[in-house]
């Protein structure tokens, strides 16, 4: 999962120990099942079969890919989990790193031919779905095509862990999966968890503090991982239509019933670039977005 996972709960020590064990076990299960870095995960098996054969999906993977399909349609095609290949291409031009890291001085633009080759491998609408005998299978038609759940896997893990903790009766708990949060419920006296939103341009400072009673809170931005090209900051999200990383919004934070929906809306907002704030105004219940110039969009 390559991120720090934190559980905060108001409970006794034995209940907390059981909750922590549950969170760890479920996170490992999801990682083993969905991580593209595990050769025997569902995602890796789908990618390795690209251009060769269809792969039958279990119910959980089918539902998650169906969710990705809804994200693709709702975002007008910019949220596309087949655009993972772009990341590697740009990574060859220099690593995606934190802006203050010594290595992130300058990235080079990849050459046009390489970009065109990779763009040919991208496109959610190119995937072939088959449904027969109650089973769903997916086929990536060209070798080199791949799907990458990216942040969706982390957000899904946060939601699954929260579901299991609620089933155990724990309600005053907050899960933090590397910045993707899910609160099972508020503090016993009804007061909310106070979540600090990092300022995208002032390291260590807070942009705002948002109260979270229950549900998911996810952020997307260009400050943790980004590309610096000719002094201009680009985010780590790529527009599949152009092949270029997007810029425009510095940070978007969304609150929703699940971390999956919150994270999807935050990523889609960033993918809309400068129009991300307007997208959130019509799409999300509670959000906070900021662009390069410091302009804010919010509904608290």
């Amino acid at each position, binding site marked *: 999962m390559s991120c720090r996972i934190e559980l905060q709960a108001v409970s006794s020590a034995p209940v907390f120990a059981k909750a922590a064990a549950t969170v760890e076990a479920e996170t490992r299960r999801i990682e083993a099942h969905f991580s593209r870095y595990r050769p025997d995960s569902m995602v890796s098996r789908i990618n390795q079969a690209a251009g060769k054969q269809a792969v039958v999906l279990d119910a959980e993977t089918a539902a998650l890919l169906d969710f990705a399909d809804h994200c693709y349609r709702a975002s007008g095609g910019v949220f596309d989990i087949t655009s993972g290949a772009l990341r590697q291409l740009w990574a060859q031009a220099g690593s995606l790193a934190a802006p203050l890291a010594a290595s992130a001085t300058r990235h080079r633009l990849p050459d046009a031919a390489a970009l065109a080759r990779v763009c040919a491998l991208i496109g959610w609408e190119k995937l072939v779905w088959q449904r027969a005998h109650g089973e769903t299978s997916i086929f990536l038609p060209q070798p080199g095509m791949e799907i990458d759940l990216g942040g969706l896997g982390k957000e899904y893990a946060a939601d699954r862990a929260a579901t299991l903790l609620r089933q155990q009766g724990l309600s005053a708990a907050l899960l933090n999966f590397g910045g993707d949060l899910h609160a099972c419920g508020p503090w016993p006296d009804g007061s909310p968890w106070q979540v600090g939103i990092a300022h995208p341009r002032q390291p260590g400072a807070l942009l705002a503090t948002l109260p979270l009673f229950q549900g998911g809170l996810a952020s997307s931005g260009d400050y943790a991982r980004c590309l610096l090209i000719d002094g201009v900051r680009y985010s780590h999200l790529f527009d599949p239509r152009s092949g270029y990383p997007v810029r425009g919004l510095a940070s978007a934070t969304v609150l929703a019933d699940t971390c999956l929906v919150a994270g999807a809306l935050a990523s889609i907002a960033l993918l809309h670039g400068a129009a991300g704030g*307007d997208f959130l*105004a*019509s799409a999300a*219940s509670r959000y906070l977005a900021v662009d390069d110039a*410091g302009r*804010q969009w919010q509904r608290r």
Partner: protein
Amino acid sequence: MGWEVAAVAAIDSLCRSAGAIARNPTSVGFLLASAALALPLSSTPVQAGDFSSPAGVDAAEVGVAYLRYQENGRMRADAPLLWFNVSPDESLQIGGSVDLDTLSGASVQYVSNRSGTPVHALSGASVNERRTGSEVHASKAWGEQRVGVSVAQSRETDYRSQSAAIDYRIETNARNTTYSVGLGHSSDEIGKHGSPIWRARHSQDVLLGVTQLLTARSLVQSNLAYGWGSGDYNDPYKSTLSFFGPGAPVVQPDRRPEARHHLAWLSRYRHFLPQINTALGLDYRYYRDDWGVRAHTVELSAAHTLENGARWVPLLRYYTQHAADFYAQSFAVRSATGSSDTRLAAFGALTLGLRFEWPLTAQSRVDLSLASYRQRAAWRPGGGTPDLPRLDAGYLMLGYVWRF
């Protein structure tokens, strides 16, 4: 590059309500939320138990507070107080408190109509009373059930009280409904300065309650309490002097019935508005006893939580009371029961209060409560006891809480 916060871009100013956007069938948020339903995830309603007193708080809480109550020109009470709450495990909770009250000022000893209208005369001797009180309680939970016990005692030079109570609570209906039952007993001994005689009084209370979650953000609670007691209820320091023409007055010492039965019904409604982080509250309480006292209380409150976790709670309370049957400001003849204690009169009262909680660190908090109380006979619909003196009082509580 400057970071000025410009005006918020409000595209959907007509749809300010968070719910409207989320429920709009064409909104992207709604579409994605529907898609997520296919996944094995659950969202949860808030449960009725979550609104009740903080059960299952791990670690300990200790608080100190200072209370000051002041009446206009009359009584004043200062009370430092220390309390604690600890949860050795999720199902067990123990707490207690100790307080030391100092009552000073002048207390009404005589009511006299010598001037033509009733006048509450101060005895000239000032009151300087010290009261110590302590209380311990513990509760244990088994699944959806919880049992609690508490004992309390209070001591002054001329008054002693011991009480004990037990309560039982059960959550049902997927923790949306909580039923509670309580029983209490109190034994008091009333003495008088300068007199070796102590009189006794015993009372019992039964309480039945239900808390029902209506939606994920609102609940209603209703409690019915019935109490009965017998013994000495008189105030040994008070009497009424009634003058009718020249000659000696009729002296009526404070005499009340030797038994009292009372009923109280409390209902509250709480509604949480997430858009403004505020919980609105409406309380109504009805009281009646067999001394003829009947009272209604209506209270409005709004608990608002700020971004840093601070909370402020303004409240407004309106109270009206019907006088006890044996209450009067003058007595033509001395009778078996009669009292001029203004607390048994007919009047209306308004309380305006503000409570403020401010977290200092992750583990400490400052609480401040202020209230202003005003009591007037004329504020009771239909009028109150004529010539009842007005009462203005103020209350302040400053507290500091540590969690660890």
